[in-house]
């Protein structure tokens, strides 16, 4: 597992039913592309997050496949519809098999 991976997510606390809200996510990860070389000229092996998903109460919002061309500390911004009170689940899948998860509650007024 890569060290120092910390997901950060920005979701509003409340919304009205059916409202479109903007979600911003950032996860600290070095996203080693597999193209760089160290000081001895050896290739540094690829180590990236290859998939990111966001679900709301089990229903999918967005599913992103990431490639080495995504910058360090992958950032995503997208919009989601909130039909009812519930929880957003965010999941990141690392090349080495680790899974980073976080969730945010939102209440509909």
């Amino acid at each position, binding site marked *: 597992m890569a060290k120092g991976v910390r997901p950060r997510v920005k979701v509003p606390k409340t919304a009205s039913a059916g409202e*479109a*809200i903007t979600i911003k996510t950032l996860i600290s990860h070095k996203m080693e*592309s597999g*193209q*760089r*070389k160290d000081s001895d000229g050896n290739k540094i092996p690829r180590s990236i997050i290859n998939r990111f998903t966001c*679900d*709301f109460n089990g*229903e*999918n*919002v*967005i*599913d*992103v*496949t*990431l*490639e*080495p*061309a*995504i*910058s*360090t500390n*992958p*950032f*995503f*911004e*997208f*919009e*989601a*519809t909130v*039909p009812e009170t519930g929880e957003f689940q965010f999941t990141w899948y690392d090349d080495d098999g680790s899974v980073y998860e976080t969730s945010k509650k939102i209440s509909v007024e």
Partner: protein
Amino acid sequence: MELTRRNVMIMGTGAMVAFGLPMAANAAGEDLIEAFTGGAEMAESGVTLTAPEIAENGNTVPIEVDADGASEIMVLALGNPTPPVATFKFGPLAASHTASTRIRLAGTQDVVAIAKMKDGSFAKATKTVKVTIGGCGG
């Protein structure tokens, strides 16, 4: 330089070399597009790709893709050592088919976004980004 027959021939050869090489480099990207669309025709409108005209740092270039009614959007950087950048799949709760992220670009090149619409058609948008410092280490 006088416009003699010999000079015209030299200029012609130079132009062939200049235009021929980028096409060879794009072959990998073309293959990926072919695999994604299955060789289907792509409309020139329907997808919007927002990217800066000039990016000072190729390590983090902000881009945004937007395609109304798209189920999937694939982003390619044709001049990168590995052209695929990301594929966005939108689920039933996506409010708009918009997503932004930050990408790496190895140098000045075309960034391509291809949207797969819900009705099975495809749309394409291309944007040239000038990169001052490339983002692939060296």
